[in-house]
């Protein structure tokens, strides 16, 4: 079965700086892959390159059957990127934002409504301007915009950052749900405990290159085993929750 993401010695430039200096990565359908590495290793650029936003100038790069070196644009419709920036309009309400981005990518209105429900923003908060929401609520709104697209490939850049425990659990549940429905997930995270138990395997990134991976991908291309999901533990008493 063809891999969803196939990168060989991929090099991507940000201006003149080679943010990706030789990435080897294969991700099969239905996998959840965690990208790990120090700051500046190129995790964000790798995610954006897979989304077709950063051009790949050397090597092979095929995502969802589209060759990124030929034209990175066709792949964009099929991916969902959740980055550091929210991509939301502060003056518009949650519903306005999700509806706009949903209709922009020709999503089904039912999907748009369902997306709002899935992140729990279809109640009182629906008609609140995004500028007045907390960071976690804004992240959930962005997530709703992603859900409405129903992308085949999820690209998540530190999705747990700034979220409280419940929301993190919600997010993990949504990721699991998406994967069961056939999506593939690539996420970069510093939340190692949570992310490692969520992911099927881990890929180390350093200096824009990939180190040999830990945890083998299934050789015969069959669907990977479901990730071991730790039941959400009670928070240790000394950890303070950031509101």
């Amino acid at each position: 079965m063809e891999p969803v993401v196939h990168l060989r010695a991929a090099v991507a430039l940000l201006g003149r700086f080679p943010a990706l200096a030789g990435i080897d990565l294969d991700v099969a359908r239905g996998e959840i892959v965690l990208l790990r590495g120090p700051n500046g290793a190129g995790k964000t650029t790798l995610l954006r390159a897979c989304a077709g936003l950063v051009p790949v100038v050397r090597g092979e790069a095929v995502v969802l059957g589209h060759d990124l070196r030929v034209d990175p644009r066709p792949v964009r419709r099929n991916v969902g990127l959740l980055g550091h920036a929210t991509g939301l309009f502060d003056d518009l309400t949650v519903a306005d934002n999700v509806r706009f981005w949903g209709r922009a990518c020709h999503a089904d209105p039912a999907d748009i409504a369902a997306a709002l429900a899935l992140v729990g923003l279809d109640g009182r908060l629906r008609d609140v301007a995004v500028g007045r929401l907390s960071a976690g609520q804004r992240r959930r709104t962005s997530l709703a915009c992603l859900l409405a697209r129903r992308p085949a490939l999820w690209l998540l850049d530190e999705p747990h950052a700034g979220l409280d425990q419940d929301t993190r659990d919600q997010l993990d549940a949504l990721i699991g749900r998406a994967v069961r429905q056939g999506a593939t997930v690539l996420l970069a995270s510093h939340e190692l405990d949570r992310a490692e138990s969520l992911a099927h395997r881990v890929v180390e990134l350093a200096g824009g290159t990939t180190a040999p991976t830990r945890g083998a991908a299934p050789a015969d291309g069959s669907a990977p085993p479901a990730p071991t999901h730790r039941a959400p533990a009670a928070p240790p008493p000394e950890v303070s929750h950031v509101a």
Partner: protein
Amino acid sequence: MWRDAALVAGRDLRVELRSRVTTNQVAPFSLLVLILFAFALDPDRQLLERLASGLYWTAVLFAALLAISRSAAIDETDGVRDALRLSGLDPAGVFVGKAAAVAVVLLALELLLGVGVVVLYGVELAGAGLVVVAGLAATVAVAATGTLYGALVSGLRVRETLLPLLLLPVLAPVLIGATRAFEAALAGVPADGWPWCGLLAGLAVLYAVAGALAYGTLLEGS
């Protein structure tokens, strides 16, 4: 493309409505400009009335700078450019939508300024047909040109200062044409004004097409 344009225009107008910056700040500013002109020139009504067309369109241009700046700012919000590129919206459609939204805002401001000029400068309306057509053509020209140049400076730290420098010389012909057309209309000689109207319409078409073609390149390349 038209569907995308309608979607984007709706979004831009909704942002303007919700934030109320246009009504609370841009409109009073443009009226203020009219009043400042009266301070600068002797409010001998004869002078103001004679110069009304030119002063009117100058005030419109200043207000347009603000409106275009606001329109460009909507898409500069963190992450919106990426999201636009990912969304699959036709860039030409995005351009047309944004320009249309700016045009609507400008029309509202022009109406307000028109009332201002009639009241403050004692202008008597005449040649309504020419006024309306020239006004529409000039508005579209300003909106299209402005949206294109707004995209050229979008996202830059120096956007606020660079936009006027780039845009105003390009809009000088619009100022010339619109003023001449209005003068002809108000003087009761519309025949003189219609050729200028043609110039305005030509500019509107030129920049609408140029913007639609260039917007995609600017969205990707910046």
